[in-house]
């Protein structure tokens, strides 16, 4: 988080007389958002670790839950946004790749937060259930969701033209939307048949007092801010990446055209 601070403060000084063109992807809005985000994250750390009390049932381990719930919320939000932007991209795919980039940026942070969710969830599970992993329907679906979107990111990296990348990955994202409810439903049905694995129901009851509820809300807000800030910036970076590829094409085209003058044309007059 320290690095965010550096950008936010140094960007004003970087805009000296020589550089009217900004040398970063930020705007006044994202910088302000970045500062608010840092504040929110720092206070989340303070409330989550220090100010909020231990739970009556769970004890100190409830502190992990703030992280766990915050990240899983963002991960699901990110995947919903990916699906919606993919549909929007296919809807009007003729021109703009913006929807494709938003989908990609959203999926990237979704995968990262899903990994954090699984990590925090495993540690929390060890503390309160005595086991890192349970074959609970929700946990299993989440793991499948994670792998599915790792696959989605791999498809984005397959190469080819920008339009092709957009179309392919949008189709894969929409297929994932088809897949997730099926996975969830089948896993749920499976678990309801096998009652023995209902360890997940044993100690999940948390009694939230006011400060704990506040901390939980703070976690949701803080992680959502991180998500919004990151997607805004990442989407711009991806746009610049695509623009640079186009520039590369311009350069390569000029190079290619120069071959004509370099090679003597066989027996032709121009």
């Amino acid at each position, binding site marked *: 988080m320290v690095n965010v601070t550096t950008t936010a403060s140094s960007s004003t000084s970087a805009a000296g007389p020589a550089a009217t063109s900004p040398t970063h992807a930020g705007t006044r809005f994202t910088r302000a958002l970045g500062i608010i985000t840092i504040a929110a994250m720092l206070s989340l750390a303070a409330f989550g670790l220090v100010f909020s009390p231990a739970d009556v049932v769970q004890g100190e381990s409830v502190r992990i839950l703030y992280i766990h719930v915050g990240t899983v919320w963002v991960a699901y939000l990110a995947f919903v946004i990916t699906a919606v932007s993919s549909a929007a991209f296919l809807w009007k795919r003729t021109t703009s790749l913006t929807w494709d980039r938003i989908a990609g940026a959203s999926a990237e942070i979704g995968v990262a937060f899903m990994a954090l969710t699984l990590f925090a969830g495993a540690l929390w599970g060890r503390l309160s259930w005595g086991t890192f992993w349970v074959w609970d329907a929700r946990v299993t679906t989440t793991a499948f969701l994670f792998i599915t979107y790792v696959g989605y990111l791999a498809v984005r990296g397959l190469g080819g033209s920008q339009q*092709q990348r957009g179309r392919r990955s949008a189709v894969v994202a929409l297929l994932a939307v088809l897949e997730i409810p099926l996975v969830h439903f089948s896993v749920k049905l499976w678990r309801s048949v096998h009652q023995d694995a209902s360890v997940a129901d044993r100690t999940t009851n948390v009694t939230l007092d006011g400060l704990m509820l506040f901390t939980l809300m703070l976690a949701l807000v803080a992680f959502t801010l991180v998500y919004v800030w990151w997607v805004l910036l990442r989407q711009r970076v991806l746009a610049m990446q695509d623009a640079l590829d186009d520039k590369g*094409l311009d350069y*390569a085209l000029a190079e*290619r055209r120069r071959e004509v003058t370099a090679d003597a*044309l*066989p*027996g*032709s*007059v121009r």
Partner: protein
Amino acid sequence: MNAAAQAVVPLGVEPVIRLVEAVAVLGKFPALAGTTLTVRRGEIVLLRGANGAGKTTLLRLCAGLVPLVRGSGWVVGCDLATQRESLRSRVGLLGHANGLYGDLSVSENVRFWGATAGAARHEVEAALERMGLAGRLADVKVDRLSAGQKRRTSLACLVARRAQLWLLDEPHAGLDATGRDDLDATVRSAALAGATVVVASHELERAGALATRVVDIVGGQAHEHAAEPAPRAEPASDTDGRGLQ
């Protein structure tokens, strides 16, 4: 450049291929760097050029297999930017790969590819006959064939597809003398029947004799050959523009 000269097209006669400053890329490499080319119906155009000049990409662009990145283009009346799918069934491409199934026999392959274009059984037989594959070879597995025989089979598939526009990429490669004669005769009669043919070849003697016009491809661009042969008479009948019947 001769873009302006080529853009002058007789009114009412839509050219089979019209490319204006077309750009196509392979990965990030601009294989076609602003190609302007017009081909009219019944022509046999020879594309010459060094390896990597962009001949193959030009043919694949015209076959609707490579997307148009910049510029504009129309092939057999379809816009390359928006109607790639609908142009494909009317164009036949003989690429570097033969597109054959090695475990199937020669006749099974030709029948399959003919069927994708809706060819009847007798048309498939005729195609096999024309490429000299009707006899013993017809039932041989493609895996067992020599390179030249595979090329013949691939050509027979193309003939059976009865395309309006033939795009041939190095068609002579690997063929023996009779194979080349068969190929040339096939191409000529297809053109006479109203099909248009674009050939990319290094075999300039062979292909040059066949062609009605020569276009040089250099650095991903097209340049009309100066010594253009006299224009062919416009093929008479055959209004539906099909090749061999």
